[in-house]
């Protein structure tokens, strides 16, 4: 592997700290990039930066989210479009979509760590934060879908006066355990990774408040050899625990469907197909966020074109698995010979008679056709193209869940229970609200925590400069 392309330019330990850590410590780093054009002119001069713009947009949509939740809680889930026969709608579509987006973070931090892939270092912190906020967005949906979120704790096993316990044979209860475990372990892993960086920030911070807050967050990290030894040990073990966790969480999410007897859901390919789709969507979101942030904060040296190239390749590979999944769904429907499955297939694909064929064919377009351009190295090296392909993947993965949920529910065994699912404005408000919430949280994270793992970058730089020095020595000896 050509390590040199993982960090470009001349650095030393201190300047790496400065370039990454000062994004947090120096408020001016957030106003360097300016919003151009009319939009920029409308913003106050000292806030004319993309950071303020996005945090502002995020804030507006957080309020849209709160409003939609208020309407929902005051009225009941009748304000959503789901009704008989489609008891699941936007809530479950978005739940699965958000959980999937979160998976890239854990994949990058855990599986690539176990595989000793050093290119993960530049993007793991960022992606882990994404995981946490995406899981937060995901968690809201099942919580609100209960209709009475204030008694959501009934989902957990606890001794109660009614002597009622959760039904452990239900995949929905598995979901509760899977998602809450996933959230907890992701936060632990993320925090453990942040401890050495908090120590660096504690020692670099100039303000008293910064020193105290980062000092508390660093928990008294000294960087002792013994601390590092245990730290490395703990990271490897957390990675080892998170890697199967990623696979299990999305498998369990897919069990919500696969354990049922609804046509189109009851298939064994769902677990691997869902996991691959999650990685696909997750990497797309990492690229969508990384491209602008890298430019605004001048992090080109740490997130290089090599990183984008590899992320694009992971997307290409998982995209092909997902495409294989679509192929298999068609094959199963035909090979099983079950009339309901075959009927469902026609309902998905028939352009003239199916009410949902627009969703299915958009899915194929966004998830199979557009990502196919990633086969070309030129496209993988073109950030604009990469950004829009990642957007297409995000939309495509959303359509995938859309195709799975209302389509199967509105066309099952009895024609008398056929229907059509139409989301309402509250559904859309909540969906865009969670996107705003996600952006808002991500940009708060960028402002207050180091978005690239500082000590890992220093370690990587150290190894690289070592290898360079050895190469120089070898060359000098040969010359003699």
């Amino acid at each position: 592997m050509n390590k040199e392309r993982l960090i470009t330019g001349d650095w030393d330990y201190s300047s790496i700290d400065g370039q990454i850590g000062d994004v947090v410590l120096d408020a001016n780093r957030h106003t360097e990039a300016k919003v151009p054009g009319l939009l920029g002119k409308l913003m106050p001069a000292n806030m004319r930066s993309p950071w303020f713009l996005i945090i502002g947009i995020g804030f507006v949509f957080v309020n849209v989210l709160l409003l939609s939740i208020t309407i929902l809680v005051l009225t009941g889930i009748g304000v959503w479009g789901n009704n008989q026969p489609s008891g699941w709608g936007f809530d479950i579509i978005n739940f699965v979509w958000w959980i999937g987006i979160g998976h890239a973070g854990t994949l990058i931090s855990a599986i690539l760590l176990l595989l000793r892939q050093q290119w993960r270092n530049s993007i793991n912190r960022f992606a882990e934060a994404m995981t946490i906020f995406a899981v937060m967005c995901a968690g809201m949906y099942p919580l609100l879908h209960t209709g009475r979120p204030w008694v959501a704790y009934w989902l957990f096993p606890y001794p109660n006066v009614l002597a009622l316990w959760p039904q452990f044979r239900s995949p929905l209860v598995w979901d509760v355990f899977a998602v809450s475990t996933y959230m907890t372990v992701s936060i632990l892993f993320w925090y453990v990774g942040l401890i050495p960086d908090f120590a660096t920030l504690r020692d670099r911070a100039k303000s008293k408040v910064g020193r105290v807050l980062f000092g508390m967050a660093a928990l008294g990290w000294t960087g002792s050899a013994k601390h590092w030894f245990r730290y490395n040990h703990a990271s490897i073990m957390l990675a080892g625990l998170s890697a199967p966790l990623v696979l299990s969480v999305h498998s369990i999410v897919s069990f919500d469907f696969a354990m049922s007897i609804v046509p189109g859901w009851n298939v064994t390919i769902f677990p691997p197909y869902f996991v691959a789709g999650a990685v696909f969507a997750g990497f797309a979101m990492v690229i969508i966020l990384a491209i602008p942030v890298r430019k605004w904060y001048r992090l080109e040296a740490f997130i290089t074109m090599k990183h984008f190239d590899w992320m694009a390749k992971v997307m290409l590979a998982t995209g092909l698995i997902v495409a294989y999944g679509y192929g298999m769904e068609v094959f199963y429907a035909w090979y099983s010979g079950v009339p309901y499955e075959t009927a469902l297939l026609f309902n998905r694909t028939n352009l003239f008679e199916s009410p949902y064929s627009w969703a299915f064919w958009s899915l194929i377009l966004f998830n199979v056709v557009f990502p196919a351009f990633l086969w070309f190295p030129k496209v993988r090296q073109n950030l604009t193209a990469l950004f829009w392909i990642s957007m297409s993947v995000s939309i495509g993965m959303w359509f995938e869940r859309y195709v799975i949920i209302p389509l199967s529910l509105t066309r099952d065994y009895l024609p008398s229970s056929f229907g059509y699912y139409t989301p309402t404005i509250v559904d859309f408000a909540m969906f865009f609200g969670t996107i705003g919430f996600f952006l808002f949280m991500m940009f708060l994270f960028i402002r207050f925590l180091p978005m690239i793992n500082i000590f890992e970058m220093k370690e990587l730089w150290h190894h690289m400069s070592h290898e360079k020095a050895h190469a120089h020595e070898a060359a000098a000896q040969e010359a003699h």
Partner: protein
Amino acid sequence: MGLFRDTAPKHYGTVASFLTPEQLLAATQRAKDAGFRDVDTYSPIPVEGVCELLKFDETKLGWITFFGGLAGAATGLWLEWWTSTIAYAHNVGGKPLESWPMFFPVLYECTILFAAFGATFGMLGLCGLPKPHQPIFNAPLMERASQDRFVLCIEATDPNYDPKDVAEFMKTLNPEEVETVMTSEGY
């Protein structure tokens, strides 16, 4: 003890800072060769090979994580079995009450959760964290140990520790700076 607690400053150790991990490794080797036992190093990145020199090889964390996982598995399985067969025995579609394959997902998640708690809190516990102020922070040069300096510390608990001799010895290692770290009880 109580009011008469001895808070007079005591020696914690002597620290020396170096510019590169290689210099730190060489200095640690010299300190070990000179017969010092209680030696530690502080660095912004993990330095490869330093734990071998310090003969520090701890396997406790692995066991803590393992037993955490075991406890999680036991808790998950017990919870599911007890609620499904005793506390709330409910016939669902004629399935057996002890339908263990159905218990697997929750059992698995509980195992991972408790093992992760073991790894995280075990690591913190073994390191003695959280402890926002450590005695070693009394050395001003430690501020750079989380940034760009590599620090060697010979601790006062070492049988051969004598502040003057150790400082003299440290200077022969060609360090950037040498400092004596003082501490008082409670710090």
